[in-house]
């Protein structure tokens, strides 16, 4: 009774119906008599046509989450909705989503055409329509003319595109991709990232992309959910995730991040941390966050936001003293590793736009400076 009453309430959202919605989804396994939680309460709304990434280290629950959307795993608790209807407990072959597997999972005994036509044949689509739809889809993934090839006769990148075509030809409500570029070499991977984005724009289908590669997620996604230990640490656009990491984990996992800590010496709109003589470390307190004087606070600054110089920086900038421990020349940029007077290790990326020589060499005492707006306070409990 309560079930039937509560279901319509959940199905009536304030906004447009989400393509995929997870509500309080949990998944635990029993292994060797012990219960292991893989996913510990995930709430998600993925909009129609969105390129959405689940990003996290291996074992964070991202693949389990995707497999629950696909229907290969049933959640221990919570519900999965596809376009507003509850599909919890519906098996994968009866769900209107398709998946691209990490290993591609092409049928080795079938040629390219038969592989791509498999889903349509299962649905009983007329032969003529199958031929035209498969042909068109092979055109989209740039494999026209290779219908008769066996998967073993194709390169890794081509197999990848067959797997993509085999899923997309069914016009699913959403396409799930499980680390699909993991087996390709770097060049091909970068090529396929652009290619995937193009295909997604072309077919207009919701993509859910699972990856542990942060640059991949940043490149392609409209939004990213960063997962760790079975929960979503942060959900936002690539820019939000990168520029404003909400937790220490996100700051460390996405890109290179510098963590600075200290006692709060003054609080107001901005918290001022106690530092060495003439140093100034400030962080704006956003979203109504409050700290008290004497509390310990940590903040992050991205390496490319920090400037480095031998002279004292201008007033109004955050400034910290340090000693250069390493200089790495990378062509387009130079990385400086600096140990601050307080003992924190800070990385600075400097574009080699004008400078012909390095600003500092190993052993130099330098000033680090950045705009206080680029300081982000980390949740103390994270």
């Amino acid at each position: 009774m309560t079930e039937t009453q509560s279901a319509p309430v959940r199905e009536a959202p304030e906004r447009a119906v989400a393509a995929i919605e997870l509500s309080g989804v949990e998944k635990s396994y029993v292994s060797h008599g012990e219960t292991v939680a893989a996913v510990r309460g995930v709430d998600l709304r993925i909009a129609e046509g969105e390129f959405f990434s689940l990003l996290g280290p291996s074992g964070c629950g991202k693949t389990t989450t995707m497999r629950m959307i696909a229907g290969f795993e049933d959640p221990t608790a919570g519900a999965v909705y596809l376009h507003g209807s509850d599909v919890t407990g519906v098996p994968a072959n009866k769900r209107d989503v398709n998946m691209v597997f990490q290993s591609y999972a092409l049928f080795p005994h079938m040629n390219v055409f038969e592989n791509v036509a498999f889903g349509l044949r299962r649905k009983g689509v007329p032969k003529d329509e199958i031929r035209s739809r498969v042909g068109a889809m092979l055109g989209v993934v740039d494999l026209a003319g290779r219908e008769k090839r066996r998967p073993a006769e194709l390169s890794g990148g081509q197999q990848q595109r067959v797997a993509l075509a085999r899923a997309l030809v069914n016009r699913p409500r959403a396409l799930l991709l499980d680390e699909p570029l993991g087996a390709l070499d770097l060049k091909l991977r970068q090529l396929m990232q652009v290619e995937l984005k193009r295909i997604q724009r072309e077919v207009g289908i919701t993509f859910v992309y699972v990856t542990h590669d942060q640059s991949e997620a940043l490149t392609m996604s409209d939004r990213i959910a960063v997962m760790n230990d079975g929960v979503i640490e942060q959900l936002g656009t690539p820019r939000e995730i990168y520029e404003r990491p909400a937790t220490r984990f996100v700051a460390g996992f996405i890109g290179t991040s510098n963590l600075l800590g200290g006692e709060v010496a003054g609080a107001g709109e901005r918290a001022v941390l106690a530092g060495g003589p003439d140093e100034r470390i400030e962080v704006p307190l956003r979203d109504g966050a409050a700290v008290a004087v004497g509390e310990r606070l940590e903040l992050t600054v991205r390496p490319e936001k920090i400037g480095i110089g031998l002279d004292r920086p201008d007033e109004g900038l955050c400034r910290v003293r340090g000693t250069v421990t390493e200089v790495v020349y990378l062509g387009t940029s130079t990385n400086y590793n600096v140990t601050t007077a307080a003992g924190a290790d800070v990385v600075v990326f400097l574009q080699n736009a004008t400078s012909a020589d390095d600003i500092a060499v190993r052993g130099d005492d330098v000033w680090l400076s950045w705009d206080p707006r680029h300081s982000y306070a980390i949740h103390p409990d994270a």
Partner: protein
Amino acid sequence: MTTLTKPETAAPRAPKRRRRISGLRLYTLVLIGWLILPIAIMILFGFNDTHGKQNFRWEGFTLRWYVHLFDKSDLTTAVVNSLTIALLSTLITTVLGTFAGLALGRYRFRGRGATNIVLFMAISCPEIVMGASLLSMFVTFNLPRGYLTILVAHVMFSIAFVAVTVRARVVGLDPSIEEAAQDLGAGPWARFRLVTLPTIMPGVVSGALLAFVLSIDDFVISNFTSGATVTFPLWIYGSTRTGTPPQVNVMGTLIFAVGVVIAIISARRNARAVR
């Protein structure tokens, strides 16, 4: 300098390499000869124009035995028994063994380890022991020995070979292939028929061929479990006391020929599947 040293290093190397190749060639020829000679003699003596009871001395060429192949009706019965038992046991064994191999290769379940050990025991158990114990078992259960007990025994000892061959194939397969089929709308039966079975087919076929070969030339276990029923190997064994007729060589030649054809087809198919 270079023109001087070059012929010096090249000259001693050439005969060395040639000698190694000829050694390898000799070894290969001896090995092939060793394997083929008994078969060649069997085929040859199927054409022997012998007039005595024994077929040991070459007395000239004839096609007589091919014409009078079915003259010895008890021999014909024995061959028919052997063929039908081999076909039936292969059929039963392949179905049961394939499912066993699939389960062992794909799933972890209670008793999996025990099943693997039992399979290994069935393969490694000496035939004479297995034959003797089967006989005691049939006698204990008071089952009349005959066609049926031979069939049961053959299924019993060849099932492990099929299961092991299929298991090896299943273990090497990507399990997400079946998930992909499910994802694309295939139910359990369609998944098995369209994806699982075709991908493990090379293993199933090798297992079936093995089962057939094991059954058709089995003597030891059949001897214990046959009762009054006679199979081809049992008939030949019995005939050695009075003289083995050349029809036996002809039957052997024909069975061998069919085996060779099947082996070639199977090898070609596997080569294509690998490519």
